[in-house]
């Protein structure tokens, strides 16, 4: 029997460990997948490293963004392709190999390191925070600068919950391309009509018609997290998270660059979402480069926009430090690829506000509508205001 042969059982152990490491690196792998990977490994020549890698990749990875993590982990986990005799020894996790660290991404490193006792999570008192502060590094400082992003106060939380319950953002609906039976429609629903006729002995008693079903518009939310928006960004994110639950939504934060918050928004709990968002955003309370951020969105996520249906909510005060030409061009693209671009502007709290800043002027010209979001009353009016803009 060959060393490292899948049938020796050693492979199974290694696969389970490998699967667990993948999971710790954030790749969704369940036990059914690991079993499938084991089956796949018996079908390829495990002596050929490339084949084994391809077999495991096709069974364990299911998202494009996980591939690089997989490749790095695989490299570390199953090292040395040539010498079959070495295979067994090499299949052991070798996370601590010196000199390799700098090449791996932190996610992979963490996934390979022994699991830490959940000490921090268990006792989340203020004392622990102070301890962390004592050993402050540059990255710690960064973390603390947006530490207030991590959780809502109890009062704020209740407020957001109440608001979201009271005013779920009733997103406008449009006719989808799917149809369903209706009393009055545009064309006959033959299946229903025939079933109906069958019941009355083949007599076409009435014609049932089909009509287009209604569907709610998908949402793209872009939230400015620059210094000038500090006071609003967190609460607005919390509100939008709670109020648009169940809708199809893509959420991004932008300051000096773009951050994808969609994974954070998938978390059910608003606090957990804020914590994840806080971790993801590393330019909180910095500058604003709206044009560049939109360009990044265009490049990386442009095709996620459901042309002509997406409703874009752009939450910013328009105090942009980037080039207005870039902003104008990207807004133009956004307009072409969505149903409506709505600018939610907290600066509307000032009477006689004029969009005079360079960025604000462009936004004012290009967006389909400008709505206020600076206080509760305005938030409560938001759904109605959106509906009104959609009518135009």
């Amino acid at each position: 029997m060959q060393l490292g042969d899948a049938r020796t059982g050693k492979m199974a152990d290694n696969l389970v460990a490998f699967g667990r490491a993948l999971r710790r690196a954030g790749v969704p792998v369940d036990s059914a997948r690991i079993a499938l990977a084991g089956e796949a490994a018996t079908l390829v020549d495990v002596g050929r490293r490339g084949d084994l890698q391809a077999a495991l990749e096709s069974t364990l990875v299911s998202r494009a963004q996980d591939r690089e993590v997989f490749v790095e982990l695989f490299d570390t986990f199953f090292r040395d392709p040539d010498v079959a005799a070495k295979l067994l020894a090499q299949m052991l996790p070798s996370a601590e190999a010196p000199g390799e660290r700098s090449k791996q991404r932190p996610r992979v490193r963490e996934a390979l390191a022994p699991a830490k006792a959940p000490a921090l999570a268990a006792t989340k008192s203020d004392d622990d925070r102070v301890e962390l502060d004592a050993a402050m590094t540059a990255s710690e400082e960064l973390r603390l600068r947006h530490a207030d992003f991590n959780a809502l106060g109890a009062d704020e939380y209740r407020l957001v919950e109440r608001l979201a319950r009271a005013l779920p953002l009733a997103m406008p609906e449009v006719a989808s391309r799917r149809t369903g039976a209706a009393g009055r429609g545009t064309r006959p629903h033959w299946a229903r009509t025939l079933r109906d006729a069958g019941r009355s002995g083949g007599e076409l008693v009435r014609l049932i018609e089909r009509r287009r079903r209604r569907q709610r518009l998908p949402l793209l939310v872009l939230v400015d997290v620059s210094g000038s928006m500090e006071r609003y960004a967190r609460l607005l994110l919390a509100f939008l998270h709670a109020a648009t639950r169940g809708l199809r939504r893509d959420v991004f934060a932008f300051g000096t660059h773009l951050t994808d918050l969609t994974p954070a928004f998938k978390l059910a709990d608003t606090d957990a979402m804020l914590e994840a968002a806080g971790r993801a955003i590393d330019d909180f309370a910095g500058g604003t480069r709206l044009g560049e951020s939109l360009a990044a969105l265009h490049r990386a996520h442009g095709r996620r926009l459901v042309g002509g249906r997406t409703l874009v909510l752009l939450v910013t005060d328009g105090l942009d430090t980037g080039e207005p030409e870039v902003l104008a061009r990207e807004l133009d693209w956004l307009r072409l690829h969505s149903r409506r671009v709505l600018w939610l502007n907290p600066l509307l709290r000032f009477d006689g506000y004029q969009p005079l800043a360079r960025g604000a002027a462009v936004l004012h010209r290009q967006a389909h509508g400008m709505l206020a979001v600076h206080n509760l009353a305005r938030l409560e009016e938001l759904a109605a205001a959106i509906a009104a803009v959609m009518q135009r």
Partner: protein
Amino acid sequence: MTPASIDDLLAGLQAAGYHADRRLATAAFLALRLQRPLLLEGEPGVGKTELAKSLAQVLGRELLRLQCYDGLEHRDALYEWNYAAQLLHMRAVEGRESVDEIEREVYQPRYLIRRPLLQALQAPAPGAVLLVDEVDRADEPFEAFLLEYLGEYQVSIPEIGTVRAVVPPVTILTSNRTRDLHDAVKRRCLYHWLDYPDRERELAIVRSRVPGLADSLARQVADFVSRLRSQPFADAFQRVPGIAESVEWARALVALDTLALDPEVVTGTAGILFKQREDVAALTHERATELLRPEPA
């Protein structure tokens, strides 16, 4: 007919005119052996749909294709009743048969219009290759509808019951990743991300697809396109050309009796490589010159 090894499959695909790399062949081989659907993701024009066609050829199976679009419903994908025939039947037996009998008779399989999914399930041995193309264009309800098929190779028709596959169809799903597919769909599939080919593979593809293409020009085309896709050139364009575009381009160059690439030829035919106004404009004379300059060693 079924390839015995990855090498067999590679050779078979090559004979069918599809130059796959070994990673892709491994994924496809496993999909065949494990009888799992294979989900292919990648940029447009990297050969996702072609793989299904070539697989059908290699396996000697019929290719059935379901093109997905927004609003696709199960009656477009699975089956529909032949209402006109049912109606005629009802008329013919009117008054002579009881209501129950009529109902039983008009919902017979012979009044069923089979769409690709049902055809794939009922295909006689050796079975079919089912291509569910651009599944990311369909909406979530359709994805949910696919789950039963992807997991069990069966579908439920209320009037008839459950239809199970005679031979499990080789199922290929493709996605351009305009949105993320649901985890439930992905869990039922093997997954492969299809990248742009490397220069050598592209050269082999262009050569085999374009008759009458001079060797030096083929090399130039492969070099040019692969440089175009490399950093930092790729950033200058919204969408870089896929394999389909380079093949089309090579065909056009042959038709134009081109002997060698120069900036004029490149800018003059940019509309074949790029399908967006901005990208055509971005391929300027200077940029074309830069791209054609031999790479520094």
